[in-house]
């Protein structure tokens, strides 16, 4: 049986792979040059091209016996991953260039991880999902520890790695059970099994254990312990990448596997997601309240945001339309933008003050109003304040909860509403430092201008956040498209 290969469908992955290879080679030849990041960004942009042509084409392309599918759903996420990758490169450009880092390898690993993500978007069987997940994760283990002389960075890498492999092991164990009980590797096969058979309780345990792996990836409570420590210790661009792209990768896997495979077995996954959602929102927010380091605060915030994103998933089984799934996707897309922006701003501020303490943000509104305005926009967007894109993310989340209308969903919606209020407190805390306080004379400031790439990244996100806030139809339509068969 010769697999027919649709090169157009695989073009994004192929472009990325080629770019990775070229980068490696170039890095060998010309060390310490800016060539690699430039090539990497070109490669990413190049990979976006086929994504666009494929979307215009619009047809579903299935390959490898149904284990790999390029449909609207996959394309939406591929686009997201590539854009995030591009922004991450922009954000890292000076950070990695100026620090004590291996430069070439950084981008190689980054792109490898992105490659894993693009694969993940199309993966439709357990093996591919597993491979994609590991392709996403393993390079980031290394990236987290990239600041090799910094013990904190080392620690970040180690914790991430250990919890990561343990989760993987648990997930694999779960997958093996799922595979064993259903006898299918392809997601569609698992679903068929579930539709036909009354599954045993063991299968539910398998499903749960499988979800643990993804829960780790999206840093849902109680599988989030690595996140704050890793985020804090890792180089900030890596943190941004982890909190956005890597998390999105986990969500994609989660959506795919739940939507396609486990959906009929509501009892096995719905309560789990429900608990994860509630716990993530609440504990993430509470822990974030008391943070003094902004990266750590954003880490907990992203835990909480993950909880919000899980809300539509938790109620998806009770919603007749696709609106819940769309809700997760829309939330994810918007979250990616604003969170990335926030980390970019953190990097920009750290360049001046050399500190990530929230108190070092005091008086930023006076010393650098433009930066402070952008940071404010990102943070308040994360808080879900209207006409900044975040409000729409929150809205679709609430909408899904109330669309289902079950008592549990309504309770979850109210919990989310209360959490949205708590969350505002710590986001506003940073705003308060920036705007309400005088600059702290004790903090030394260097008058380095923010590099162009960083500014560009922030500006792109700012415009996006504002535009989508006023006209969210654009992104909502994207979410809708993802679940419309081509």
């Amino acid at each position, binding site marked *: 049986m010769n697999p027919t290969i649709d090169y157009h469908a695989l073009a994004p992955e192929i472009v990325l792979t080629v770019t990775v290879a070229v980068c490696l080679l170039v890095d060998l030849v010309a060390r310490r040059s800016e060539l690699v990041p430039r090539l990497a960004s070109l490669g990413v942009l190049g990979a976006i091209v086929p994504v666009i042509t494929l979307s215009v084409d619009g047809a579903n392309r299935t390959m490898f016996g149904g284990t790999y599918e390029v449909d609207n759903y996959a394309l939406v996420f591929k686009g997201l991953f590539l854009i995030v990758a591009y922004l991450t490169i922009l954000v890292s450009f000076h950070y990695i260039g100026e620090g004590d880092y291996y430069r070439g390898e950084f981008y190689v690993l980054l792109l490898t991880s992105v490659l894993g993500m693009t694969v993940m978007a199309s993966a439709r*069987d*357990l*093996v591919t999902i*597993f*491979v994609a997940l*590991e392709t996403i994760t*393993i390079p980031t*283990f*290394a990236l987290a*520890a990239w600041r*090799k*002389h910094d*013990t*904190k960075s*080392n*620690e*970040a*890498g*180690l*914790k991430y*790695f*250990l919890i990561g*492999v*343990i989760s*993987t*092991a648990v997930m*694999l*164990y779960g*997958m*093996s*059970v799922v*595979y*064993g009980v259903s*006898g*299918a*590797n392809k997601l569609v096969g698992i679903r068929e099994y579930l539709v036909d058979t009354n599954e045993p309780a063991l299968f539910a345990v398998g499903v749960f254990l499988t979800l643990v792996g993804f829960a780790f990836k999206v840093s849902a409570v109680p599988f989030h312990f690595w996140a*704050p*420590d*890793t985020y*804090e*210790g890792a180089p900030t661009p890596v943190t941004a990448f982890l909190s956005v792209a890597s998390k999105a990768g986990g969500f994609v896997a989660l959506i795919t596997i739940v939507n396609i495979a486990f959906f009929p077995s509501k009892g096995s996954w719905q309560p789990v997601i429900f608990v994860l959602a509630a716990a993530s929102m609440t504990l993430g927010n509470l822990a974030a309240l*008391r*943070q003094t380091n902004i990266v*750590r605060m954003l880490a907990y915030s992203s835990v909480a945001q993950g909880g919000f994103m899980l809300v539509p998933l938790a109620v998806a089984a009770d919603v007749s339309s696709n609106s819940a799934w769309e809700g997760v996707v829309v939330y994810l897309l918007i979250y990616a933008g604003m969170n990335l922006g926030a980390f970019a701003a953190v990097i920009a501020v750290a360049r001046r003050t050399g500190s990530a303490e929230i108190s070092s943000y005091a008086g930023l509104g006076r010393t650098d109003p433009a930066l402070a305005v952008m940071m404010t926009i990102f943070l308040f967007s994360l808080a879900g304040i209207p006409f900044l894109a975040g409000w729409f993310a929150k809205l679709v989340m609430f909408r899904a909860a109330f669309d289902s209308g079950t008592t549990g969903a309504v309770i979850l919606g109210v919990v989310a509403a209360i959490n949205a209020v708590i969350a505002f407190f710590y986001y506003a805390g940073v705003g308060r430092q920036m705007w309400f306080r005088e600059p702290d004379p004790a903090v030394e400031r260097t008058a380095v201008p923010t590099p162009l790439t960083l500014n560009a990244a922030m500006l792109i996100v700012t415009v996006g956040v504002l535009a989508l806030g006023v006209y969210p139809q654009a992104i909502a339509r994207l979410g809708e498209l993802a679940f419309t068969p081509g």
Partner: protein
Amino acid sequence: MDLNAFLILAAVLFCIGIYGVLARRNGVLVLMSVELMLNAVNINLIAFSAYVQDVSGQVFALFVITIAAAEVGVGLAIVMLIYRNLRSPDLDKIDQLKG
């Protein structure tokens, strides 16, 4: 062929792995315990594969072996890095980041 025997073996191995991960203080030994867990999974996969007469389980196991190797590679590198900076592989000493 009794499937349950394999499953129990895998479960026991998995639990031993868990114990190792939790109890060992040396980073390298923890890594090895993780390997144990992954191998437990492999046993599971192959046993199931045979049981359901489907080859994909064995393919899965091969992928797991490969990726486990890569994982351990990265893991060892990180442990080495820590050892270089802290002069100790003791995981208990690594708690700068918390709260």
